[in-house]
């Protein structure tokens, strides 16, 4: 009887908060709606008033999308972006979790690992613009001014944030799990692969989403590394820069293209979302 009342109370609580959050969600939706409306309009339907930004077009047409696909060479450039993003994500997850494990398990009692930790994490505060030109020179010298080089640099540049996240999370994973494995005669490598790596799943999801977002949307690094030659390495954001010529930006085409670029990463996030939130809980509570 008492339990029933409690459940009822809980259920009563749900709706006002839901409605409040839905109303606040409008603040998220209005700008997105604007992007969508502009994406389906023709340049001749753009006017300098509120209707130009918000009114629906007279004729619905997806021609901007097909045109955007053609102009940006979408399948090719998105393919490049996807390749760079997927490789960066996989490499970041592997490399960062590995070194973070070494750091997290040793930094308490070994100065050198503590130094590694602060060395890597402090890189977060270096402005990219300071490294850019020297880096361009260096990468060209090693013949790494291509897709592979860009992936390589994403690993390096995301290292700071990823190490911070992984080490923080690893501190919450009890060592007792590993110790029993060591007693059974396992090596450090196998402990990492069999026990730690799977336990890090929620952090993998977080790191993957962050790295994917950083790589997929990035303009500056591909801009200075990939430009030139036959342009076969061009990424989608680079191709999209064509819309922003100083003398007249075709926002209709540009927004259609941005919406197309948004979809793959949105799907990826929706898949990863559950892992991120649920996973962080599990790990932290156990600690």
């Amino acid at each position, binding site marked *: 009887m008492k339990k029933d009342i409690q459940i009822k109370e809980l259920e009563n609580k749900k709706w006002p908060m839901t409605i409040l959050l839905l109303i606040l969600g409008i603040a998220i939706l209005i700008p997105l709606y604007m992007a969508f409306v502009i994406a389906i309009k023709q340049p*001749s339907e753009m006017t300098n008033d509120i209707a130009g930004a918000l009114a629906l077009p007279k004729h619905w047409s997806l021609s901007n999308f097909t045109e955007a696909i053609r102009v940006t060479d979408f399948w090719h450039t998105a393919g490049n972006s996807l390749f760079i993003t997927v490789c960066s994500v996989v490499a970041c997850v592997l490399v960062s979790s590995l070194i973070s494990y070494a750091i997290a398990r040793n930094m308490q009692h070994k100065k050198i690992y503590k130094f590694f930790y602060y060395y890597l994490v402090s890189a977060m505060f270096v402005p990219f613009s300071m490294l*850019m030109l020297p880096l361009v020179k260096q990468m060209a010298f090693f013949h790494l001014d291509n897709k*592979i080089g860009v992936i390589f640099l994403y690993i390096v540049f995301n290292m700071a944030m990823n190490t911070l996240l992984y080490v923080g999370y690893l501190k919450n994973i009890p060592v007792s799990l590993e110790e029993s494995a060591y007693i059974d005669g396992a090596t450090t490598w196998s402990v990492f692969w069999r026990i730690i790596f799977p336990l890090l*799943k929620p952090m993998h999801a977080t790191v993957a989403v962050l790295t994917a977002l950083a790589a997929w949307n990035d303009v500056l690094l591909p801009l200075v590394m990939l430009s*030139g030659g036959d342009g076969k390495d061009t990424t989608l954001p680079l191709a999209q*820069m*064509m819309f922003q010529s100083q003398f007249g930006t075709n926002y209709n085409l540009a927004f259609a293209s941005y919406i197309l670029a948004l979809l793959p990463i949105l799907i990826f996030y929706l898949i990863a979302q559950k892992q991120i939130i649920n996973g962080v809980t599990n790990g932290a509570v156990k600690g």
Partner: protein
Amino acid sequence: MKISKRVTAAILTAALCAVTGIGCSSGSDPDKTAIEVFVFKPESVEIFQELGAKFEEENPDIKVYVNSPGDAYAILKSRMVKGNPPDIVGLDATQTYVDYAKADIYEDMTGSDLIKKVKPSYVQMLADMEGMGGTVHAIPFAANVTGIMYNKEIFRKSGLDIPATWPELITLCENLQSAQETPFYLGYKEDWTINSAWNPLAGNFTSADFYQNVTDGKETFEEAYEEPLNRIVKLNDFSQGDIFSYNYNNATVGFANGESAMYMQGNWAIPMILQTNPDMDLGMFPFPAMDDAKDNRLCSSIDLMFSITKKSSHPEESVRFLEFLTSQENVNLYMENQFGIPAINCDFEFPQAMEGIVDDFNNENIVSSPQAYYPSEMKVPVTIQTYMIDSDKDKLFKQFNTVWQDVHEE
């Protein structure tokens, strides 16, 4: 757990395959010579790709890559830093080009067969700009003109004539305002649009050796720019209002939709105006900057010019491409597509919208745009934008003078 490991392994294998695959597929067509053409105007990429394909057809031994990225100046610099500049570089007339020319990056074009195809006034303009004893390092290809575009329909309706002098322009604006029309749509949120009014004003009020004289201390910005500054600020009274809230796009759309009678811009704005309003009856006339119509000159600059880099491993093929590009037929193809004006000597028919400037252009009654002489650190449009907001003339001249001295003492 086992599954996730397998998935990881699969992804890794796939990634590795892709990596090795990429490694193999590069270097297609080994018997063809590839040249890279870098153009700073992303809006012209399609016509250049078209021209490139046409060239490849006529020259089967050469492959042309057109590279026309956004933020071209940043890219070009990173290419120079890398030490592998493109074979052909297409830029506009700014001090950035001059810096590269002075750093000995381009081939000298002085007296070449190619430069003989160019109208002498533009060769002279380029030589003045480089200021290195008459040498030139580029082939001017397209020119631009900055003037005033107008809506012929509104002019007809109110029975207005094209102004030839500054006082006439002011009277015209006042008449428009009393007829409830907005004279100008100003998009000064984007500071570079201020150049469209500033270049004709400052250009008409100074002579070609003004900049050298400033360096030598014989003339000052304070004296020469007093009147242009007063005039450019005066024009703000005839705008749609709230001028720093609207950018180039907004202003172009506003003018195209008939929200203003006139629009200060260059010929590059025409494609977008006609895209927004294909039925518009569009005209253009030279900016009447002076009090006497005789003194008034049309403001023009080099819009696109091509240089061949010294590091190019295919200088011969690059010259062949430029010869192809500067032929009568191909010049016209480009100009028609981009609403450009040729800097090359050739038969050319101005599009109807530009009729009003043909006389001045053909008579070479032209003044070079001062923009070409300003070092980028001087940030002229931003400084004028700031002046329009805070009316602090001393600050403006201090900024101009400091940068000018800084750059020219080295």
